[in-house]
């Protein structure tokens, strides 16, 4: 039988893979995808807990996480276009005008 811990472990694995990607990848778009992954693993936790606790609040939170993620993606991609227009690259190695 699958308990809530199985779901939590699965989501922790995905969250860690996402964090790993954020730390190791150089391409800003891929870093952004990894952040979406992290948020998705959070969604999984909420859905699993929502069922475990027999309580709708967890699913409601997922709704807000999705909305925030969509807003962040829109702004982030616009910023990437702005950065690319100036620098012809979105590699984090090129984030060097300001001392990192």
């Amino acid at each position: 039988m699958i308990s809530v811990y199985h779901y939590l472990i699965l989501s922790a694995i995905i969250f860690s893979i996402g964090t790993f990607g954020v730390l190791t990848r150089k391409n800003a778009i891929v870093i952004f995808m990894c952040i979406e992954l992290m948020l998705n693993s959070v969604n999984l936790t909420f859905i699993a807990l929502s069922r475990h606790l027999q309580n709708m609040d967890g699913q409601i939170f997922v709704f807000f996480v999705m909305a925030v993620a969509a807003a962040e993606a829109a702004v982030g991609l616009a910023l990437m276009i702005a950065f690319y227009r100036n620098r012809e690259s979105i590699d984090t190695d090129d984030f060097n005008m300001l001392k990192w």
Partner: protein
Amino acid sequence: MATWIFYILGAVAVVATAMAVTRRNPVHSVIYLVNSFFALAMIFYLLGAPLVAAWEVIIYAGAIMVLFLFIIMMLELSPGEEADRQGPGALQWLPVLLLGAALLTCTLLLLQLDPAAGQAVPNWYASPRDFGYVLFHEYALAVEIVSFQLLFAAVGAFYVGRAASREKQPGGQQ
């Protein structure tokens, strides 16, 4: 049965996620990410959250990932156009095919289990109706805030993404 589906979907999600994070070509990452989102959506369905599962597919796999794909193609970030001309090698398409096949199997299996009938989810099931009631009844204020947030995100994205123009605004001071 539900146990098996969970393990297959969990494996698909983890493998697809790992592949997405490690691919060099951003387009490949997007494809694996979509796989991972589909697996997660099915797990949501298994957990008695059909509405959120649908959103996962519509918003994440549909809207956000297409937006990513659009930007990748617009900025021409995908490397190795010469390699693409010969068609992708088996090593490139085989993992996606396997993951997709696993997802398809799970979909067929899921169709056998109807969560509403209480087989897969013995104790709890959130129908879209219940969800909508709680969302717009208890959390109406939060919905308003989040919609304002989306509005200003759209305004900001329009403003920042538009190319800078040097035309002067009328009516400015001094």
